[in-house]
């Protein structure tokens, strides 16, 4: 169960300002039903240009509803300039904090507010800026860059908590890491390839792998295997015990021994049986 603050619970169970303003000055819609949460935020200005009324409609979990409710309370009485400066951290703080996995709810609040102000100022709806990085949740590189910069997020999980990117299939994790590295200036030099094994090291490693990994397994079926020679990437072995007479030993050799040696020593190895 999530640890929600009393304030989150209060705003969830007794949401303030839920509903629609029919003649709103600004409306901002974010999220979608597929993503699991969505918010429509409305505001109305008074004659002095201050926010007189603000309401919301939210589909989502407790923290999404609470963040929306909090936002409407926070902006009342503000000028649009003041409202613009509200960050997602401000919303979370107003609620006494949110579980980190739920920070995206506060981001949703800020985004809806920005959109609603943009709508009032008649700014053309910002096109989706940047390139979509996370296909599952439709998150762009710009959005990811923004949370890394503004929320001091430095891990993929952090990015997921704030903007959901990377929370689905996980295919974009490498790209998210690249963005984080670029911004934090910690771009790691490409990993150097493991130095090629010397012949001596290779033979030793093959021998060890056979003794430690392969023979104990073969032994369960009363079989064993002996290393005869290593010629470049050809590993010559002799099958013993029950393997010597087993019809399946060529299968064992290819499927098990070879893949094990490729995993443990070098991917280029080819195992051959000699009499």
């Amino acid at each position, binding site marked *: 169960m999530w640890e929600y603050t009393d304030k989150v619970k209060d705003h969830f*169970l007794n949401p303030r300002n839920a509903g629609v303003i029919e003649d709103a000055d600004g409306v901002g819609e974010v999220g979608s039903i597929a993503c*699991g*949460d*969505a918010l429509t935020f409305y505001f109305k200005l008074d004659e002095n240009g201050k926010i007189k009324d603000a309401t919301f409609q939210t589909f*989502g*979990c*407790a923290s999404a509803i609470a963040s929306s409710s909090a936002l409407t309370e926070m902006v009342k009485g503000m000028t649009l300039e003041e409202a613009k400066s509200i960050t997602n951290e401000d919303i979370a703080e107003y609620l006494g904090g949110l579980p980190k996995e739920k920070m995206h709810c506060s981001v949703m609040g800020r985004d809806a507010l920005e959109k609603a102000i943009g709508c009032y100022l008649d700014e053309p709806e910002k096109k989706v800026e940047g390139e979509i990085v996370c296909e599952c*949740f439709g998150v762009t590189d710009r959005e990811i860059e923004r949370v890394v910069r503004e929320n001091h997020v430095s891990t993929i999980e952090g990015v*997921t908590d704030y903007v959901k990117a990377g929370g689905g299939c996980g295919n974009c994790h490498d790209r998210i890491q690249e963005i984080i590295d670029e911004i934090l200036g910690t771009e790691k030099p490409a990993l150097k390839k493991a130095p090629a094994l010397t012949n001596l090291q290779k033979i030793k490693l093959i021998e060890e792998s056979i003794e430690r990994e392969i023979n104990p*397994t073969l032994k369960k079926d009363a079989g064993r295997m002996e290393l005869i020679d290593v010629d470049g990437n050809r590993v010559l072995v002799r099958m013993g015990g029950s393997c010597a007479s087993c019809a399946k030993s060529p299968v064992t050799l290819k499927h098990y021994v070879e893949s094990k040696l490729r995993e443990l020593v070098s991917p280029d190895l080819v195992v051959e049986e000699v009499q």
Partner: protein
Amino acid sequence: MTVIYVDNNATTKVAPEVLEAMMPYFSDYYGNPSSMHSFGGNIAGAIKTARENIARLIGANPAEIVFTSCGTESDGTAIRAAIESYPDKRHIVTSRVEHPAIKNLYEILSKKGYRTSFVPVDGQGRLDMEYLFNSLSDDTAVVSLMWGNNETGVIFPIEEISREIKSQGILFHTDAVQAVGKIPLNISESGVDMLSLSGHKFHAPKGIGALYIRKGTKFFPFMVGGHQEDGRRGGTENTAAIIGLGKAAELASENLKADGYGRVSRLRDKLEHALLAKVPNAMVNGDTTSRLPNTTSIAFEYVEGEAILLMMNEHGICASSGSACTSGSLEPSHVLRAMGVPFTAAHGSIRFSLSHYNTEDEIDGIIETLPPIIARLRELSPFWKQAMEG
């Protein structure tokens, strides 16, 4: 506040009879069943009775029962034993709606180079048999399919499937954690080679499970140690829990002989019918013709599950949800996604799972409390009005 507990697929109350049976094994009878003195050794007799009770519940031979710590251990032991027994076979089969104990293990094995088939289900959660049987080959080491689904309650025809798979000489495991104790099982007449069960799903305590291993099945222990469980699972027996599991099995057997889950399923049906009648845009997830008697998964469109749960929580009602937000992941449950439940419904799916301890009054309480909660959340939701206006 009184609690209305309808989350019995998550865990159940320990039956008072079970607790009573266990208590002496925490205090007076603390000996080690492996000891040579009768103070400890006598306890082996009580464990034997517990083993017989479990065997009777599923129609097995006592020697085919190995006690484990939980369903997850039983599942992991079964699959790892299967692939160790057939090291040349590199293909493993399961379904797309399994419990994480199987699902995540298969995903790890897949990364280790095993060819893995995840058999799909249809919109009602029924297994695609053609896909299953077409996926089998000489290279298949093991097939693992759950008996009853934890989220929807949908029952796979395990007896029929297992006989077909057995006839092809392939090892068959079933995760019967949700089925054991709720529906009559006769394992010896099926083609099941291994079966996992978990005590706390049928009124035994947490931390005790069992694995059925058909006589003659090749086996490698997962926990290697002493000679306990005939060398099939090392480690000193969790005596009190084993006694509790045995008692719970005895109670379940008696119950299945009597009314079984008749009363529970009538309460479940009452709940389901009333909610569907009172709440518009609600639907049942899964095949209602072949389902565990205690389970219903209901999707309430255009609202989100965590919000429903927390509002029910305010009224002491304990259920669970397949929504994304409850699990910390961002996507709804893999079971509902595999069934192709639309997002509008998947996020608002609630599972009610009943037990013998539920009363008619409790069910009436839920029927009264839940519809206004859904209505209130829909009032808050931007999609509800849109959907109603078409």
